[in-house]
């Protein structure tokens, strides 16, 4: 690791005042330190935010929950309110990483994970995300794990998080604080597609700090499923994952939320696909129609065409599982 200085502020205001172009906030550090060991990132200063008062999970006036940015992934997944009211989120978190990593990784940091594209990690190769303008070897290189949706000429990386896929389906809000004050960002608008600026994973401004994630009151607790498909049974990133949530009236779908992981630069959600399910009977045929709509425009690379059919079937299966009732 390249040497850096270390600071540990006690308050959010202090942390934000310390932030600059040469610094990074560190919480769990499970991804940041890995990237620093590989020299993908070389901050001159680390600002340790673990002393900030962002460790709690509290009910909001609107009937939802506010999750402090420093709550660990493990504490979040096993929190009674999350297990009971938002099992989709608990399932997604427990599908990711390992128990050791979940004990360290923070909620805010999970949103800020970088892609696991091999070329992004390998400083001996070009990468537009790491070094803007240097090129993308993945597009014509090894791209089995890469994007089938929303990619650009500059970048075909995918976002690695499971948690964020569930947050997208649950329509969470990201609360941030920064040099220009506090604001809320819908999860939909937090991560971005690569376009011509793949170096920007998200819409956070300079010095902005995630302080919490707000879940709305509706958690789709009785009919949800998180399906993750990967190269081994555990502890691997998703090739395709699906967060499916339904609100049913008997057999009729009143509301549906579907988000995909492992297929794009951000959790992939198409509201038009969800609307196709409204008022329909919860059965395979309409699930397949929704899957078609979600995958409309999918463009495979040389090694990942399998992801399109895998995603199609995974969507139908996840929706079928959700319709059958949440498996507790």
């Amino acid at each position, binding site marked *: 690791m390249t040497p850096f200085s270390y*600071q540990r502020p*006690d308050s959010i205001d202090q942390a934000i005042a310390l932030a600059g172009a040469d610094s990074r906030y560190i919480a769990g550090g499970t991804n940041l330190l890995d990237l620093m060991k590989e020299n993908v990132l070389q901050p001159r200063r680390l600002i340790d935010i673990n002393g900030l008062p962002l460790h709690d999970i509290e009910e909001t006036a609107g009937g939802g929950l506010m999750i402090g940015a420093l709550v660990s992934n493990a504490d979040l997944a096993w929190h009674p309110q999350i297990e009971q009211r938002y099992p989709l989120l608990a399932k997604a978190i427990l599908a990711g990483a*390992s128990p050791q990593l979940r*004990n360290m990784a923070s909620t805010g940091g999970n949103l800020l994970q970088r892609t696991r594209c091999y070329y992004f990690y390998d400083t001996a190769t070009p990468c537009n995300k790491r070094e803007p303008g240097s090129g993308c070897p993945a597009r014509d290189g090894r791209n089995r794990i890469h994007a089938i949706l929303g990619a650009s000429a500059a970048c075909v990386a995918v976002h690695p998080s499971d948690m964020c896929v569930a947050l997208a389906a649950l329509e969470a809000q990201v609360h941030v604080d920064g040099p220009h004050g506090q604001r809320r960002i819908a999860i939909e608008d937090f991560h971005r597609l690569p376009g011509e600026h793949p170096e920007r994973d998200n819409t956070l401004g300079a010095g902005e700090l995630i302080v919490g994630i707000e879940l709305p009151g509706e958690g789709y607790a009785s009919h949800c499923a998180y399906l993750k498909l990967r190269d081994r049974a555990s502890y691997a990133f998703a090739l395709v994952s699906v967060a499916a949530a339904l609100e049913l009236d008997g057999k009729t779908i009143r509301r549906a939320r579907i988000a995909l992981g492992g297929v794009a630069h951000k959790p992939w959600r198409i509201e038009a696909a969800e609307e196709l399910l409204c008022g329909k009977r919860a059965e395979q045929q309409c699930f397949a129609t929704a899957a078609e709509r979600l995958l409309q425009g999918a463009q495979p690379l040389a090694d990942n065409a399998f992801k399109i059919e895998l995603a199609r079937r995974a969507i139908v299966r996840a929706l079928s599982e959700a319709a059958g009732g949440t498996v507790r």
Partner: protein
Amino acid sequence: MSENPSAAGAIGTCTITLVLNGEHRRLEVQPWTTLLDLLRDPLGLSGTKKGCDHGQCGACTVLLNGRRINSCLTLAVMHDGAELTTIEGLARGAELHPMQAAFVRHDAFQCGYCTPGQICSAVGLASERCGYSREEIREYMSGNLCRCGAYPNILAAIEEALPAVRGQKQEDAR
């Protein structure tokens, strides 16, 4: 701002205190020293292994405030005041920890390199709300790889020892 000298932001040595295997230690660390490197090199606690150094293999698993973590992916300076238990701190004198004894009884290793991490991880699992079936143990031990493939015996050892370790923890908590 914290009273730690590091708060000033200088590149240099920081002082931290740890309760390391039950012993209070005052230590000088550089900000970029991982917990794993602190344990192995200056402290000579080489039971904690460096496998991949990227959080993928679990050989460096230790118990930080009772919870299992990868010591390779965290900085020592971040844990001022923490309680840390490594494989060296599990036995009580000459008496092996029940999880260690189970690993010996089941011959749950071949080369032994992953073993300290496996054992610390399994002891951490005993404090969690999971691991109550063979399938769950397999899933919740997936962060510890064994290149020799000793998994069947590792699983048998953990399955046998978990109830006793859980019971001991509950007693200690009283």
